[in-house]
């Protein structure tokens, strides 16, 4: 199978200058790969560094060392050392990300929030909105909310806007940070089927799921993050 992303020996430490420069090791020796058409799940207890790994893959967190090679437009690019411009391009075309929380922008409607990743790739507004409406309907987001800014939505409603935004494109790699955390059973099922569809289309997915049922339903591979605990790096 086609490997779309390879992380090798990635290390991350936070240095807290506000607290006298104390070093907070997060993960070390993170090594794994993601294959087209499959979904890997990051496992391990809270605080072990699962979200930090997703954020490093997305270029949202820096890395201390190691490589994150991504197949981008037919070339291999190291996200960890890529220029900001390249990272933005990778986000636009190659790596999608569904965050845990929606960062609401004042006055921007749910429809525009979800359609934005298509709009920045030059898709016509009408097509992008149509696609967003389809996803909203599939995710059972009440139609009266579509044209409103999501700032005042409930947690579950905001999350569905976020999911629509993440799934609207055909990014070959998709990162999911607890996309089902505040959803009811019916909508969790919708997300499971969306993930299955992405796999069938040949995307490589990497997710964090606290919900055991969802994890069982989607995971082809479990990556145990406690094996990358920073203290173990010397071993």
């Amino acid at each position, binding site marked *: 199978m086609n490997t779309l992303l390879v992380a090798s020996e990635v290390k991350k430490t936070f240095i807290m*200058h506000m607290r006298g420069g104390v070093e907070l090791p997060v993960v070390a020796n993170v090594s794994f790969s993601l294959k087209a058409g499959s979904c890997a799940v990051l496992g391990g207890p809270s605080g072990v560094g699962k979200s930090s790994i997703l954020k490093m893959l997305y270029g949202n967190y*820096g890395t201390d060392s190691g490589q994150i090679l991504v197949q981008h437009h037919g070339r291999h690019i190291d996200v960890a050392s890529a220029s900001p411009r390249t990272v933005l391009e990778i986000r636009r075309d190659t790596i999608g990300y569904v965050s845990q929380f929606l960062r609401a922008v*004042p006055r921007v409607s749910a429809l525009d929030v979800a359609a934005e990743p298509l709009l920045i790739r030059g898709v016509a507004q009408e097509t992008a909105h149509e696609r967003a409406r389809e996803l909203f309907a599939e995710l059972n987001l009440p139609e009266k909310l579509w044209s409103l800014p999501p700032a005042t939505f409930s947690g579950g409603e905001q999350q569905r806007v976020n999911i629509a935004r993440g799934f609207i494109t055909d990014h070959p790699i998709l990162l999911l940070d607890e996309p089902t955390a505040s959803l009811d059973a019916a909508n969790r099922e919708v997300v499971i089927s969306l993930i299955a569809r992405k796999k069938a289309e040949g995307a490589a997915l990497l997710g964090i799921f606290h919900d055991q049922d969802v994890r069982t339903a989607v995971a082809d591979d479990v990556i145990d993050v406690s094996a990358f605990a920073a203290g173990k790096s010397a071993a």
Partner: protein
Amino acid sequence: MSHSDTLEALAAAGIPAPVKPLLSVEGLTRVYGKRIGCADVSFDLWPGEVLAIVGESGSGKTTLLNCISSRLTPTCGTVHYRMRDGASADFYKMAEAERRYLMRTDWGFVHQNPIDGLRMTVSAGANVGERLMAVGNRHYGNIRNTAIEWLSRVEIDEDRVDDQPRTFSGGMRQRLQIARNLVTEPRLVFMDEPTGGLDVSVQARLLDLLRGLVSDLGLAVIVVTHDLAVARLLSDRMIVMKEGRVIEAGLTDRVLDDPRAPYTQLLVSSILQV
């Protein structure tokens, strides 16, 4: 193989020619006697990219903005700008007239205080139309129509076109200043604290408007702000300044979510949560 041959080969292979920076700033320094305004600042800005320069008052961010936009002459360093014909020109080696023409047409400058960027005693329509006349438009009807179109783009009612901006609210004045700057379809716009001094709700509206215009027009923007939330909302990349020097630079969300420099960590941790 010459450069143009290489480009042709790339084009033949279906690979688009690499986009070159619109603006290249190198080693830009401005000293005031013994004091440093800004020191050794270098960066590239690409077409359509929004760069935020952040830091507290006195960090040199406005000095830097003024040095790049020729409102202040740098002590040393260079600013190269890619003209519409694709040639790169050393900004401070251009003839004064050429530089002025560039600033009137290809560049915009949005001041923190709209009074500095508007003519308060002529009508709103004339404020917008004046920039059009500067680039050679002479047809009164066309100028007026374009002005009205731009007023509506910045959400100012058509029936205010003949009013003077001194009768406008702060938020309206700022939106008018933006229309005046964008009407000539510049490629590069400088903004100095564009939302400073506005109410929060007015600020949100302005930010949303700016976001839309920047992406619709594919503008390259350099925005100076002390407000990290404004930087997050508007910019792709960010430069953090302290005492005239760049202490951290990178992707905006990387700098804000994973700040490295002690000073950036202090700035980020000082944001009030609502």
